[in-house]
């Protein structure tokens, strides 16, 4: 029982960088800007955050630097795509590659140098609770923040006027424009805020989860974060669930490595990614037009519940995602 609690706590901790990255991507994509540079941003954030923390011996400064790096990359994306009208996909992809290579180049001096990390901070009293304390309250400040970030983003998007505006930007920017919203300026803001969160996700790796910096330290996490946002249907709670699921798969893979020695280690490293793709494919299959037609031909008793399940599972992307808005 206690081992299970410890494992669950480990899952929550392991998912924290993904939470920051996905919530950042969510913010940006809900406003209609697709930021494909996530992988590069996380890597530059990890490298930059670690280096700054190392040089200044200050973990908060490291996180600040990572956030600034993320915001700067998002700003470049915005200028090139929103202002200069280039494809968001193309620019984002190139920025991802650039970030990956640049982090290797600039980060060479700090490879495998021991550095500072986020201090362990069990919450007094609460940490001593049985089970619950082990799962939720024996972490560090960063992980507590990741717990708070999901409800905050959810509340912001679905319970504030600001959130309504952001969602309108992603669904139909022309409608937002008609209501007097400065569309491009708001998209800049959301994309840059999102970028800062993604940068923090990078530092969460190098200063907490996988302390230190090495060549391609966080490779692949950005792409996974993008996939989780899609899998989560752009809904904060479901996206968070996707993050925790992925983290759990990683930990299970790690455990199985020990128990099933015969299987090559690469299998376990790759397994979470493969499973993620399968889940994504499944979700998209259920929501395809063919599947809908098949549902329509089910016997009436089954049709209702199945249709409801599918409509819950399959969520359409923000309608204007990746599209440029030009004022008339």
């Amino acid at each position, binding site marked *: 029982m206690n081992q299970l609690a410890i494992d669950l706590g480990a899952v929550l901790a392991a998912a924290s960088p993904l939470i920051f990255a996905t919530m950042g991507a969510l913010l940006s994509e809900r406003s209609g800007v697709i930021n494909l540079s996530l992988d590069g941003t996380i890597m530059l954030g990890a490298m930059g955050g670690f280096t700054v923390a190392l040089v200044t011996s200050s973990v908060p400064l490291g996180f600040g630097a990572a956030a600034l790096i993320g915001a700067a990359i998002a700003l470049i994306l915005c200028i090139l795509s929103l202002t200069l009208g280039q494809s968001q996909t193309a620019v984002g992809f190139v920025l991802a590659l650039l970030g990956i290579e640049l982090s290797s180049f600039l980060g060479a001096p700090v490879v495998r140098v021991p550095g500072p990390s986020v201090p362990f901070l069990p919450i007094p009293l609460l940490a001593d609770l049985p089970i619950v304390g082990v799962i939720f309250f024996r972490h560090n400040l960063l992980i507590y923040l990741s717990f708070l970030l999901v409800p905050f983003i959810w509340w912001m998007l679905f319970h504030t*006027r600001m959130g309504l505006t952001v969602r309108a930007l992603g669904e139909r920017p022309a*409608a*937002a424009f*008609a*209501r*007097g919203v400065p569309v491009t300026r708001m998209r800049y803001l959301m994309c840059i805020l999102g970028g800062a969160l993604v940068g923090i996700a990078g530092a969460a790796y190098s200063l907490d989860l996988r302390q230190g910096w090495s060549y391609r330290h966080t490779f692949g996490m950005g792409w996974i974060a993008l996939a989780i946002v899609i899998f989560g249907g752009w809904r904060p709670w479901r996206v968070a669930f996707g993050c925790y699921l992925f983290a759990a798969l990683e930990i299970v893979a790690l455990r199985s490595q020990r128990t099933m020695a015969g299987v090559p280690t690469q299998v376990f490293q790759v397994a979470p990614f493969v499973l993620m793709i399968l889940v994504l494919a499944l979700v998209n299959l259920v929501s395809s037009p063919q599947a809908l037609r098949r549902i329509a031909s089910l016997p009436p008793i089954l049709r209702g519940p199945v249709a409801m399940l599918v409509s819950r599972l399959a969520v359409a992307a923000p309608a204007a995602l990746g599209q440029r808005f030009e004022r008339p």
Partner: protein
Amino acid sequence: MEIAVTNLTKTFGSLRANDRLSLRFASGKIHGVLGENGAGKSTLMKLVSGFLQPDAGQLEFDGQPVRLRGPGDALGAGVGMVHQDPLDVPGFTALENLLCAAPRRAFPSRAMARTTLTTMAQRLGFTLAPDTPVGAMTVGQRQQLEIVRLLACGARTLILDEPTTGITAAQAQALFEALRQLAADGNTVLFVSHKLDEVAALCDTVSVLRTGQLVGEQLPMPQPQQRLLELMFGERIVQTSGQALLLAGVTVNEPPGVPVVHPGQDERSSEASPTTPLVWQLEQVTAREGMVRLRNVDLRIPQGRVIGLAGLDGSGQQLLLRLLAGRLHPDSGRILVNGVDMTRARTRTYREAGIEYLPADRMRDGIVGALSLTDHFALLQPAGITVDRQVAVQAARDAIAAYEIKATPITPLIALSGGNQQRAMLALVPDACRGLACEQPTRGLDVASAQGIWQRLQARCATGCSVVFASADLDELMAYSDEILVFFAGEMSALLPRATLTGARLAELIGGVGFERSAP
């Protein structure tokens, strides 16, 4: 509030959409703005509501010069516009739409917004539920929601751009009532339309635009229809008065709603005999799509007929068209095309049998916007590895000449006007076509373009092709159908010969008065 424009000019490239317009709209009245498609009505309205910025000229609200940097500024100053396709967010509920980016003083809280929505909807005679997703509403309801939103956000002048396109007659009546009430309360209403009868029914004054210029300023209503037509269409009408009026689809000296009688049509109605071969035959067909369903439909459509489908939006007309075109398979029953059972056949088989489908949403389902007419003809060539561009270019040239499409063979279709796109779509229908299912064939077209489309359709009928079309326009249904099918609440009437119907009777049937389902 009073709205005045002075020397307002707006150009798009080489086109002068608005050319030194000077106009004054007094408060508390309903002002009609008439003009053909492309006369510059929408441009003027977008300038007044801040969507566009003028190249030259001056705007004044209540005597104060204003400079609008966007629609937000205009709404802040009290001017709101309802667009032809309402600018709302389909994923939001009605309430969320109301709250989205609205000034805080308009709706201090969600609960207040809910109250405002229900009370205002009730006062204006609208049927709006706060928690319905906008995507599930009809165009008419979305319009109503926009009106409520604009008023709640402080609009004292409402601009409506072609508001009756795509809404039902009953919704149009509700809208007119609400507009009259708003004007009586002191609001200014600008009503943009190309439909004379609506302007006559609703407006206190009318202004007429032609090719970006003001040709009739603040004429008090009523005006003789002929005079308005002359203003709208200019010399064309003056030269050959009678014919041009027919071209405009309006009869002079007769109240609106009376159908235009086309020479030759009546003889054709009587000539169909039981021995004419059938294009379509439906036997006990039951089908459903989404919420709409048709049960036990029996229908026989012989060659060379025009069948009009009437009814409120989403009463099953589209479902029947999609069944006829093979885009949807019935749950039970049989569909025969030219005497061959095609119940479960694929769309391609239908097309090989000469059945074509013209969808209402041209840009989404009908044509590929970025491709030219030549490309479209190339796509129609028989399957193979290469396309013969020479043949395709020739076909495009022929189509442009035959259908009077204003385009070159290589113009992307998205660059064409609605009427030209519709004619291009019709030109793409092969000559061998035996049956044509069209949804709203003249939606959004001006009267001249619509008339042109119908001339083509009727020419096809003369060669034995049958046309089945759905339309929300009663005049169109009465003018061109040989027989009419009325849809009401998921039921379908028998084929009603046009000669037995009047416009008023048809409107009653659509509203369910005396509606009788076809014998099962």
